[in-house]
C-alpha cells in the first residue's frame, strides 16, 4: 500500500507536466493580443510593443514555458498583469471561498444523493423511487443560472429567510484569518457571524450541489440494486438482521466504489466549474477570478489558476483511489 502510494504520487509528475503544457498552449490559442487588450483601445504601437517585451511575450514559446516552469518549481506562480501582485499572494482568498462553497455543496450532494439513491433502490419501483429519479433527471439537466435566480426569488425575496448573495452581511463583516469564514467565525467565537455565514452559504451551495446530487443519487441507486440482488444480502436478510444494518453495513459498503469514483470526479468539477453559481451569488471564488482574468488576458493568472485547480482535481482523485483499498479489503495495490 505504501509503495503504491509513492508510485501514484510519482506518476503525478508527468501528469502535471503535461497539464502545464496543455494549459500553456491553450491560453496562447485565445485570440487577441494581451498587450493591446491590457492597454486599451487607444494605446500607441510603441506602448504595445514595450509592454509585449516587458511581459516576455516576444520570446519564443519554449523560453516562455521554461521560465514559467522554473518559477512554478520555486513556488512562484507569476505576477498578475492586472493587479501587479504575486499570484501566490492574492490567490488564497479566492481559493478559500471556492473551497468553502464546494465543500458544503459536496456534503449536501453526498448526504442527500446517497440516501435518496439507497431508499430508491430499497423501495424499487415505489412512488418514492419514481419521484426521486424524476427529480434526479430534472436535477441533472437543471440550468443553474435559472435555478439560482429562482432560489433568490423564493427564499430571499418572498420568504425572506436567506440572503441573496455574497459571503457575509457586509454591514457586520467577518474578520478573516483563514479566509474560510465558517472556521474564522468559530475561531473568534462569533456565533452570530457563524450563522450569518451559514445562511449565506445555503442557497449557492444548493445550486452548486444540484447536478452532483442528482448524479450521485442515480449511481448509488443502480449500484445498490446490483448489490442487493446478490446472495449475501439475501442471507443477511434471511438471518433477520435489522434492515438498517443490511443497507448501511452490508449493501452500501459493497456498492460504494462506483459512487466514490463519481464523488471524486464531481468534487473536482465543482472547484473549477462553479463560475455560474459564483456569478449569480456574487461569490468571490476561483471561477470568477479566472473568468475575469480571461477577459483581461491576464495570462499568468489564467495559467496558474487552472493549474492549481487541476492539481487539486488530481489530488482528490488520488485520495479516492487510495480510499478504495481502505473501504474494500478485496482491493489490494501492489
Amino acid at each position, binding site marked *: 500500500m505504501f509503495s503504491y502510494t509513492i508510485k501514484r504520487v510519482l506518476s503525478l509528475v508527468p501528469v502535471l507536466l503535461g497539464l502545464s503544457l496543455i494549459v500553456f498552449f491553450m491560453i496562447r490559442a485565445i485570440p487577441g493580443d494581451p498587450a493591446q487588450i491590457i492597454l486599451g483601445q487607444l494605446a500607441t504601437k510603441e506602448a504595445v510593443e514595450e509592454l509585449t517585451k516587458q511581459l516576455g511575450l516576444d520570446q519564443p514559446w519554449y523560453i516562455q514555458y521554461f521560465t514559467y516552469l522554473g518559477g512554478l518549481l520555486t513556488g512562484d506562480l507569476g505576477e498578475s498583469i492586472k493587479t501587479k501582485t504575486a499570484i501566490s499572494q492574492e490567490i488564497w482568498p479566492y481559493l478559500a471561498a471556492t473551497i468553502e462553497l464546494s465543500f458544503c455543496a459536496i456534503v449536501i450532494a453526498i*448526504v442527500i444523493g446517497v440516501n435518496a439513491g439507497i431508499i430508491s433502490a430499497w423501495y424499487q419501483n415505489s412512488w418514492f423511487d419514481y419521484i426521486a429519479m424524476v427529480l434526479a433527471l430534472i436535477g441533472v439537466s437543471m440550468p443553474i443560472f435559472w435555478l439560482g435566480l429562482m432560489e433568490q426569488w423564493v427564499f430571499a425575496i418572498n420568504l425572506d429567510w436567506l440572503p441573496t448573495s455574497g459571503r457575509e452581511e457586509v454591514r457586520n463583516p467577518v474578520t478573516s484569518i483563514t479566509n474560510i469564514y465558517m472556521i474564522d467565525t468559530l475561531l473568534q467565537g462569533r456565533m452570530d457571524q457563524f450563522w450569518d455565514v451559514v445562511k449565506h452559504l445555503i442557497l449557492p451551495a444548493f445550486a452548486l450541489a444540484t447536478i452532483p446530487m442528482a448524479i450521485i443519487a442515480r449511481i448509488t441507486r443502480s449500484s445498490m440494486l446490483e448489490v442487493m440482488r446478490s446472495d449475501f444480502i439475501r442471507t443477511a436478510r434471511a438471518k433477520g438482521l435489522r434492515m438498517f444494518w443490511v443497507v448501511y453495513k452490508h449493501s452500501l459498503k459493497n456498492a460504494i466504489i462506483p459512487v466514490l469514483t463519481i464523488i471524486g470526479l464531481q468534487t473536482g468539477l465543482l472547484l473549477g466549474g462553479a463560475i455560474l453559481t459564483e456569478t449569480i451569488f456574487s461569490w*468571490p471564488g476561483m471561477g470568477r477570478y479566472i473568468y475575469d482574468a480571461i477577459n483581461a488576458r491576464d495570462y499568468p493568472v489564467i495559467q496558474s489558476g487552472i493549474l492549481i485547480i487541476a492539481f487539486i482535481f488530481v489530488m482528490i482523485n488520488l485520495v479516492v483511489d487510495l480510499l478504495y483499498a481502505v473501504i474494500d479489503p478485496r482491493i489490494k495495490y501492489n
Partner: protein
Amino acid sequence: MNKRKGILFLVFALLLSLALVGCSGNSSTGGTKEEGEKDTGTEGTKDTEEGAGGGTLVFGRGGDSTSLDPAVTTEGEAFKVTDNLFETLINFGEQDTEIEPGLATEWETSEDGLKHTLKLREGVKFHDGTDFNAEAVVFNLERWKAGNAEQFYYYNSQFGDKIDSVVAVDEYTVEFNLNKPIAPFYKNLAMSPFGIASPAAIEKHGEKFIENPVGTGPFVFKEWKRNDRITIEKFADYWQEGLPKLDQVIFRSIPENSARLNALASGEVDLIDGVNFSDVPTIEGNPDLQVFERPTLNVAYLGLTNTRGPLKDKLVRQALNHAVDKKALIEAFYAGAADPAINPMPPVVAGYNDAVEDYPYDPEKAKELLKEAGYENGFEMELWAMPVARPYMPDGQKVAEALQANFEAIGVKAKIVSYEWGTYLEKANKGEADSFLLGWTGDNGDADNFLYVLLDEDAIGSNNYTYYKNSELHEILLKAQASSDQAEREELYKQAQVIIKDDAPWIPLVHSRPILAGKAGISNFKPHPTGSDLLSHVELK
C-alpha cells in the same frame, strides 16, 4: 403555470428542510442562546448607527475596481469609488459637465490660451493629515507627466506633451504653462483621473498606492476585498462642514443584473446601478424602491465600416439609415428611457447641432437610394452584435435582431455575428466587421471627446472603427481643438455634424438614460452623467 410553481416550491422546501435537519445536527451547541445574543447585538449596533450619524450605504454594482488610484486606470468602475476619495481642481456640475470650483476656487486664462493660473482652496487636508497646497498639485502633475501612456493613460490622452510646466507661484497659486492651447483644459481637469493625491502617501506606498489611496475627498479608504467589496468611511476633517452625511459606504460587486436587483429587493444593498431596462416597471411597482435615471452622456450606434463592400458607397449608408426604426428600438429594449440619436453626440454637449434632422424611418426611400446606388436587389453583409451589456446597449443580440429585420425589409440580408468581447473589439478595430454595434460614454462632456475621438481620421486604429475619413471634417475638428474661443468652437462642431450626417459613417441609434434603483429612503442622490457619482450629500432614512 401556477401548478409548476407549486411543484417547484415543494421541491425547494423539501431540499431545504433536509439541509436544515443536517445543519442542526452538526452544530447544535447552544444554538438558541447564541441566536438570542445575536439579535440584541445587531439591533444594538443598528440603533447606535442610526442615532449617531448617517449610517452605512451599500452600493451594489456590476464589477470590482482594478485600482484605487484614479490616475492609473481608465475603468468606470474604479472611478465610482475614487470620486469619493479624491477631489479634482475643477468640479463638474451636480448633474452636468459645466465647470465649477473644486480644489481650485478661481482660475484665469491668458489671451493666447497658453497660461492658466489657478487659485487653490485654503485649509484643505489630505486624509493622512498633510496639507493640500500648490506644492502638492505640482507634485501630482509631475508624477503624471513623468509616466508613460501605459501608466497614466488619461494624462497622456488629454494633456500629453502640451503641458510644458506647472509652477507653484505661491502656497495657494499654481500656473500651468502650455505650448499649445487645449480648448477643453478645465473640463479635462475635472475628469476623475485627475484627482489630487497626497504626495506623502505616494512616496510612502510607491507602487502599492493603488491599494492605499489618500486624497482630500469626503470619504477615507478603509478596506478592499478583491472581487467582493470596498469599504470607505466618513472623513472627519473634511473641508465642507456637515459633509458627508453618511458614515460609511460599501461598494459590493454583484456581477449579474437580476441578482443585483434581487439583493436590493431583499434589503442587502441600498442602491444599485446597471438595472435592466425591462425591470423598471417592476421597481416602479414596489413602494419600497425608487428608480433613478442617469442623465445621458452616451451614444449607441451601428458602425458601417466605410472600407467594406457596398458600404463604401455613401448612398448605401444613407439607405441603411433610412431603414432603421429607432422609436421601436427604444420602446422594445430601453423601456422608453432613451432618445433617438441624430448626431454622434448627445444634445447636452455644447456645440450640439439642433438644426440637423434625422434620416426619417422610411423603407421606401431606403429602397430608392439602394436602387440609385446599383443595389436594387439588395446585398448581404455581416452585422456584429455586442456580446456584453452596456448602459447604452442593454442586449446587443436582440438589438441586432431588430436591425436585421429592419434591413430585411429593404432587401439587405444581414448575418448576425458575435465574438467574445476582447476579440470583438480587436477585430472591429482592424476593420474586419461590415457593420457592428458599439457605443461611447463621454469622459468630460466636450464635443471633441465624441467627434474627434470617434470619427476623425487620426482616430483610425484607435476608436474610429469605421475607417471613416473626410479631410474637410479633419480640418474643422483640428481647428476646434486649438481654439480657445468657445463660441467659435461650437460653430465649428455644428458644421462638423452636418458633414457627418451627410457622409453617414454610422447609424446613430440612441442616447440612453442608464437606470439605477435604490431604497425609497434614499434622498439627495443625484446620478452624474459621467457615470461616477459623488455620494457626499446622500442621506439614508
